[in-house]
């Protein structure tokens, strides 16, 4: 029996050594916490990614690795999971943001697993830094595809106007030909009249084919454009959009502040479209601050008494050139040297299609604040 136990212990030690050697070399960070969120293990990759040593963080609350609002909410996330068993991230994974020891925020992909060890529950988080462009290339391609799709939907608003005009022409012609045929048949049914009626019906038929072609063009245009509005958490939309917009921005030293009103969390929106609005505004804000000495990006939400939620994206850049202020939300208007100037136009189309509005104003201390409203889905 002792011999068996001895062999078993050696085997376990070998396994543990093997496991440790794997964990020491994998590029993803691994953080193990207990069920109250206190750190039990912090891998070498985690030390490199976050700037803390394992010795420093053991026993600390894992929320120290997160920026607001996750920092102050994480304890309640765990409490909620312990109470309800409802999985919001475990086994699912998500894109979010993390906070380095030096204070900067960076985008990560987080996967969390759950296990029981000696009757104690532990959670293991695998953290993938998606700052490095080559590692997110595939994900960005997916996102670009989605954004292109959303862009087409947004353009639909302006296309719809001209298509309605085009469609009106054959429909009017069909109505005219049919009325003429009816009037002719009312006056008699001689050969000449019947020939004229047949001619009118032929024309009506051609016009209906033309109308059908216009409808098919419209259908092809929007074939990937179905929007899907549902109740979404604004906190989650902002966190994900912020993470994606921050990709590649670390070297600029942007200070990111996210200030969320808990009474303004649930909104009734198309997730992909609103994330595009947020990503556009955040990217614009980052671009605007590249040459500023102060680089503060502030994203805040506020409940509106009129059943709307207001989202604000503020920067401390130089502000918007007076030459483009009046037409800023028009397509192909931009103050950037590189850029087509359709981002804000698309933002406006998306926001207005949700029943909201978008506007901007100068910040008192310098910079620009963009605001948009979205329909609240209540608490």
């Amino acid at each position, binding site marked *: 029996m002792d011999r068996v136990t001895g062999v078993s212990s050696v085997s376990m030690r070998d396994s543990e050594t093997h496991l440790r050697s794997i964990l020491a070399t994998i590029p993803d960070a691994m953080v193990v916490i207990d069920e109250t969120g206190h750190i039990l293990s912090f891998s070498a990759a985690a030390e490199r990614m976050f700037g803390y040593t394992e010795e420093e963080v053991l026993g*600390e609350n894992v929320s*120290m690795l997160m920026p607001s609002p996750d*920092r102050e909410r994480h304890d309640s996330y765990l409490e909620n999971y312990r109470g309800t068993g409802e999985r919001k991230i475990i086994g699912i994974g998500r894109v979010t943001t993390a906070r380095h020891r030096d*204070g900067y925020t960076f985008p990560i992909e987080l996967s969390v697993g759950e296990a029981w060890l000696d009757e104690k529950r532990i959670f293991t988080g695998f953290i993938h830094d998606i700052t490095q462009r080559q590692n997110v290339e595939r994900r960005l391609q997916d996102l670009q595809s989605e954004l292109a799709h959303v862009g087409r939907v947004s353009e639909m608003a302006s296309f719809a106007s001209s298509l309605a005009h085009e469609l009106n022409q054959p429909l009017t012609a069909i109505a005219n030909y049919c009325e003429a045929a009816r009037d002719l048949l009312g006056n008699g049914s001689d050969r000449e009249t019947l020939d004229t009626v047949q001619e009118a019906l032929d024309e009506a038929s051609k016009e209906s084919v033309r109308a059908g072609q216009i409808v098919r063009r419209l259908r092809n245009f929007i074939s990937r454009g179905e929007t899907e509005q549902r109740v979404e958490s604004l906190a989650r939309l902002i966190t994900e959009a912020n993470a994606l917009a921050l990709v590649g921005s670390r070297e600029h030293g942007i200070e990111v502040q996210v200030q969320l009103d808990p009474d303004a969390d649930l909104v009734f929106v198309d997730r992909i479209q609103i994330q595009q609005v947020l990503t556009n505004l955040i990217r614009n804000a980052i671009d605007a601050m590249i*040459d*500023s*000495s102060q680089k503060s990006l502030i994203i805040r939400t506020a409940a509106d008494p009129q059943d709307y939620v207001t989202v604000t994206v503020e920067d401390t850049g130089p502000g918007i050139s007076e030459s483009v202020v009046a037409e800023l939300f028009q397509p192909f208007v931009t103050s950037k040297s590189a850029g087509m100037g359709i981002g804000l136009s698309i933002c406006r189309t998306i926001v207005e299609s949700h029943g909201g509005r978008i506007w901007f104003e100068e910040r008192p201390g310098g910079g620009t604040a963009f605001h948009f409203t979205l329909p609240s889905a209540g608490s």
Partner: protein
Amino acid sequence: MIWKTVRLELSPNVSSTKASPSRAFLIRVPLDELGVIDAAELARDPLRATVLRTWSSEPDQFGHIERADGHWVFRCPRKRGEDVYRMPAVPLGLHEQVTVQDPNGATQPFTVASIGGTNRSSARA
């Protein structure tokens, strides 16, 4: 004059015997070679002097730094009003101690855990 990011971490004290990296201030200030915050330089670009307070399980606080009553004052706006923290105007040396008085008047010891390099714009300045 170089702008630096200085990290102040809560030191062991009467309420905790362990230093706590999860309770910290990150201040961006112009430092001279002795670690003294240059008041004149800061006055030239006051919006650049920022503070980030990260405190375990509490919302991040951001604010600006200014000189008042012989102290460096960290003003962090809240939804209503602001929280004010005060640090004596002493040199900031790596691993040295400073005290910070919180809005309730309690003074806590902090260690200068790191003094970061310049950012891109400071290097140009």
